[in-house]
């Protein structure tokens, strides 16, 4: 009873679109590391603070975001803001989430393209790249634990690694093979 009062449908209109834009802009500006890092921040803003949707609705929106291809942060912004304010909401949410990184990267690109040969800049990337490699390595290891529980999954993983690394199979082809495999050989 009380819950229905707390999670009122927000009043539709331009003010709500602007509010959505600013909320996602803020989330986009302060979450470092991309999609998965954003999830708890988005939940806090739109469920706890703004009360635009119920926690269980947010979980559904997260499931939608994860089942589509593309940028996870954009997907979450689109699915949840569509729920809150329709297609305009989705547009404002997605643009708000993307704009901070867009602006920051343009500034860095201007700097980097001028200073690429600087000894300190080059040295920094020389040292940081091995750390990023290990980051990817650990991400892959963690994903193996979470995802590959059965033999069929192990088969796709090994075949995929062999094809992608050993034979230079195009990633789009690899995804399509995985789709066909999933649709026809999984129970």
């Amino acid at each position: 009873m009380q819950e229905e009062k707390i999670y009122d449908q927000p009043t539709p209109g331009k003010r709500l679109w602007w509010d959505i834009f600013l909320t996602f802009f803020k989330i986009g500006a302060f979450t470092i590391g991309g999609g998965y890092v954003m999830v708890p921040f988005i939940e806090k803003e739109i469920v706890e603070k703004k009360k635009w949707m119920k926690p269980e609705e947010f979980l559904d929106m997260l499931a939608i975001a994860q089942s589509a291809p593309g940028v996870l942060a954009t997907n979450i912004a689109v699915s949840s803001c569509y729920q809150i304010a329709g297609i305009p909401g989705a547009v404002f949410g997605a643009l708000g989430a993307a704009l901070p990184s867009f602006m920051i990267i343009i500034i860095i690109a201007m700097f980097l393209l001028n200073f690429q040969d600087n000894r300190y800049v080059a040295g920094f990337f020389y040292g940081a790249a091995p750390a990023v490699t290990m980051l990817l390595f650990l991400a892959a290891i963690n994903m193996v634990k979470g995802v590959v529980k059965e033999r069929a999954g192990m088969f796709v993983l090994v075949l995929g690694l062999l094809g992608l690394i050993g034979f230079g199979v195009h990633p789009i082809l690899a995804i399509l093979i995985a789709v066909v495999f999933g649709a026809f050989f999984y129970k």
Partner: protein
Amino acid sequence: MEILELFITFFKIGLFSFGGGYAMIPLMEKEVINIHHWLSLSEMVDVITISQMTPGPIAINLATFVGFKTAGFGGALCATLGVMLPSFVIVLFIARSYEKFKELDVVRRVFQGIRPMAVALVGSATFLVAQTSLIDVNTILIALGSLLVLKFTKISLMGVIIIAGVFGIILYP
């Protein structure tokens, strides 16, 4: 024409990336480096490094950077909108018919197939990046050190990257 090319390429990247930003790296390599020669592999690794230290998703960061380097501000805009557009449309479509979509058994099975392939893509991304990052004794030592620190301490990802970068400045040949 370059701008249209950027849009189409990043549209394709957005359409076929499952499993987050890291899984997108092999596709970026094929399209951006091998086919269009917009970046070198080591430049791409630099942008991935920057992505880990700045806000926002890797895919948006890479699209913006590649677009800006290739065709200035307009290029950045086209590449970024291109990478966002496919999922924008698909997510809207799913959100509209979520209740039906949820119950389709084939959807569940397809994702069971895609998930292990996403792991393979991240594995192959590791391999790709290692080719330009692990180039001498110093970088291999930094990698081993980072692995230990990432695994056994609570230092943040960004902290580890910055420390590794400082070691890089000191050891740079």
